[in-house]
């Protein structure tokens, strides 16, 4: 992974006249362009796209790929991201012609396989969550979150047309998307305190509930990787006040098959298929964020929905109370296929083993590192453990330096500086697909780092050393914006 020079930009490989892919000529007797479109509407100059030969093209992108860490090459314990193995057979299934080469506007009768898959996936997600209905439309977790809040807003508008339920309660430990999503729905965010374990502070919750409450957003397990002990009580209180409870399903990998969110008071939840259900992260997307709801929210789900009658599937958009469309067509189908095949290969037992092993692996790491690193919450964790590098910071080495050192040691760093309520946070989520040997090598690296902090903190300057690049000047990037190549 060590290159002496940076890989040039594709534009820098360009030379006039080079061609990567030979294309056919125009048909005999084809009209000239000027016969088809008036010259005034046409570009005078072609767009200045690069002109490269196929070898240079391939070499450029293959070299770039070699500058990435990835699950297939490295242990990637990013907390709350669930970087589990992406099964190749799922990719294979999504690439079948009857899955990849189908047009969304084909008549329903020519899409019975695809519609059956969508319907079955909805049933499967309902089965693992307890919800009454599922929408597969949202393209990502944040998109699912936005939908969840739209559903809450529409529900209240329908049931209390003169009501003023415009407040959404959000824990202080929440991810920034939560208040951003709330604002998109015209809600005001009101912060609810967490207790010292990051659980909802019930007293504070009580003081903030009222006729103005539309609902609450909660992440469970919370961003500390702990199952909120107050969630059942909090749900009851919110419902009593007339509100609805939305759960961010980012950490679902910890509890899938062990408890059903719909049964502990959640009214609406989003799933992250690219986390819990193994669809590949692709460098940051595409993912998929389906939403599960209890029956009272079902009428508001977005269109279109898949309907089944006597084994025949069709799309239905005739849903008068629907919040509307949240995107074009019907969801990130290519991703939905992968989640479907993943679930089909797990079955009821396999699903439970996911959370069991995810939680086991995280607790193992926690047990092995708790003497060397500060553990803000010395209780069994769920699928991720959160350490603080406060002790190391006293020795002059912060979570940031530890992260960069891990890169040099051949591991992708865990999540750092999140959750905000832990100083110098290191959030480690191994997932269930790692072998014990991998966990042990990571543990050894972390212990080695802790020792080196004590013996030789100067070794943590100017890291990383063995990546294709050293530390980047982020301040310069923001101050001297260069966001687009120009000739």
């Amino acid at each position, binding site marked *: 992974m060590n290159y002496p020079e940076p890989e040039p930009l594709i534009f820098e490989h360009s030379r006039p006249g080079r061609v990567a892919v030979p294309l056919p000529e125009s048909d005999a007797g084809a009209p000239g362009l000027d016969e088809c479109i008036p010259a005034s509407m046409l*570009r005078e100059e072609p767009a200045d796209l690069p002109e490269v030969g196929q070898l240079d093209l391939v070499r450029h992108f293959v070299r770039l790929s070699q500058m990435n860490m990835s699950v297939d090459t490295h242990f990637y314990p990013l907390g709350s991201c669930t970087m589990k193995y992406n099964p190749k057979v799922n990719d294979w299934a999504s690439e079948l012609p009857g899955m990849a080469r189908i047009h969304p506007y084909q008549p329903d009768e020519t899409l019975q396989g695809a519609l059956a898959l969508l319907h079955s996936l909805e049933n499967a997600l309902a089965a693992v969550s307890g919800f009454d209905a599922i929408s597969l439309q949202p393209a990502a977790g944040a998109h699912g979150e936005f939908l969840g809040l739209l559903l809450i807003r529409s529900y209240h508008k329908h049931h209390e047309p003169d009501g003023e339920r415009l407040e959404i309660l959000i824990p202080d430990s929440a991810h920034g998307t939560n208040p951003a999503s709330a604002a998109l729905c015209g809600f005001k965010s009101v912060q609810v305190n967490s207790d010292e374990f990051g659980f909802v502070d019930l007293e504070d919750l009580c003081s903030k509930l009222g006729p103005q409450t539309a609902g609450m957003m909660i992440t469970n397990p919370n961003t500390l990787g702990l199952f909120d002990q107050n969630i059942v009580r909090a749900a009851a209180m919110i419902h009593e006040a007339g509100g609805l409870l939305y759960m961010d399903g980012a950490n679902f990998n910890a509890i899938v098959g062990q408890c059903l969110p719909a049964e502990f008071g959640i009214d609406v939840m989003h799933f992250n298929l690219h986390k819990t259900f193994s669809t590949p992260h692709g460098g940051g997307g595409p993912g998929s964020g389906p939403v599960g709801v209890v029956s009272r929210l079902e009428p508001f789900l977005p269109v279109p929905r898949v309907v089944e009658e006597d084994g025949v599937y069709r799309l239905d958009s005739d849903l008068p109370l629907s919040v509307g469309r949240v995107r074009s067509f019907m969801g990130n189908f290519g991703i939905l296929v992968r989640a479907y095949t993943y679930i089909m290969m797990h079955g009821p037992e396999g699903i439970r083993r996911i959370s069991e092993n995810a*939680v086991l692996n995280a607790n193992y790491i926690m*047990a092995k590192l708790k003497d060397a690193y500060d553990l803000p919450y010395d209780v069994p964790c769920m699928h991720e453990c959160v350490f603080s590098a406060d002790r190391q910071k006293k020795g002059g080495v912060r979570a940031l330096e530890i992260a960069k050192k891990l890169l040099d040691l051949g591991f992708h760093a865990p999540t750092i500086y999140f959750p905000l309520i832990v100083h110098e946070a290191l959030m480690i989520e191994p997932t269930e697909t790692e072998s014990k040997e991998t966990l042990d090598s990571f543990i050894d690296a972390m212990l080695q780092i802790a020792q080196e902090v004590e013996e030789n903190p100067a070794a943590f300057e100017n890291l990383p050393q063995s990546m294709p690049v050293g530390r980047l000047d982020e301040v310069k990037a923001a101050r001297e914006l260069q966001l687009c190549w120009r000739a």
Partner: protein
Amino acid sequence: MPYVQNTDEDRDAMLAAIGAPSVAALFESIPAEIRFTGELDLPKALSEPEMMAHAQELSAANESLDSKICFAGGGMYDHYIPPVVDFISGRSEFYTSYTPYQAEASQGNLQVFYEYQSLICQLTGMEVANASLYDGATALAEAVLMAQNIVRQDAVAISAGVHPEYIQTIRTYVQYLDAPLSDIALENGVTSHESLASALQSDSPPRVVVVQQPNFYGGIEDLESLAQLAHGAGALLVVSANPIALALLKSPGECGADIVSGEAQCLGIPPALGGPGLGMLATRDKHVRKIPGRIVGQTRHERGDRAYVLTLQTREQHIKRERATSNICTNHALLALRATVYLSALGKQGLRKVAALCTQKAHQLAALLKQGGVEPVSSSSYFNEFVIDCGKPATGVVTDLLEKGFLAGVPLGQFDESRANELLVCATEQRTQKQIQDFAAALTDVIE
């Protein structure tokens, strides 16, 4: 259990290190009354070969574009995808990597996004692009929100030529934001300048104008005039564009657009029932701090050379929270990579050639249909698709043509009951002369 590598031995060793008696003991934090101890209502697990057979069955229960020759467009297109695109995007290090939070470990992705942003700027004629959004519809909704933010006003006028599903998506996005939406009618297949002018002079004029290029019905809009009209009234022009068409057409940037969005599935991404797609968003430098989503910038690193990093993150939700420009966390990274490889593979001449072939083939098709007595319903100029009147329900025409081996087009009745006899027909560079001739003959036959 698939993919879990822990053996019983491993588990025992780990439990011993933890000091827990069993794995079940690790779940004691879940209150007993809500523990699920039953059996999940899922089919029994399939083995890998069984699942592959099942997937094949489901796949075979669909008619694919390999079995039905595609003359349907409407936002998703059957274009040529060079195998290098699959080859590169299938590389593990691209496929299974994550968001570039550790920039030193993600230079591959970051440089790809920078190249992608640059290519989108070139096609759209704009100065800055983000690293992609989910799809054309949500990208347009984000563009509208962004425009409202820039002018600090909410009234939006949307051309009836914008994709109906995109219009629906915008409506969903702004339904609780007190944003008055109005329509601008079409005249002869393109946005009526008269209607727009009159809307801009009304008592509560829109300050954001939205059009599509080419529009949903295939018509090529006169973006320059629309931009002039909008700007003359202090409004911004948002254009949702087809990036392949932009290889031929005057760029929205050149014509004065303020924000350009669009669906970039046509750039090397299979149609896959419409998703995942690739939303593009580009604008002028002066609006860069209002742009949603990820942006990659060039900088230097410690050893002195050029490097790439996510930048301007203060716009984003994890910093600004409820004052963020949007709630979007992700980009469609792998598909932005595909588009980058596609555009680099086709290049300056190749993309133009693809666009020219699309234009020629669509016009050849129209000429053959005209010979058979079927003409496009509007006389506006078009790129790769146009609307014909079948004289009877278009859904029936599509069904009849399926039997002859063609996916004939997009029946418009599903968007507008008054257009139930109309069919949106598309020809891309993939359609051979023979396919076009056979289709034209079959279509005119069925319509008669």
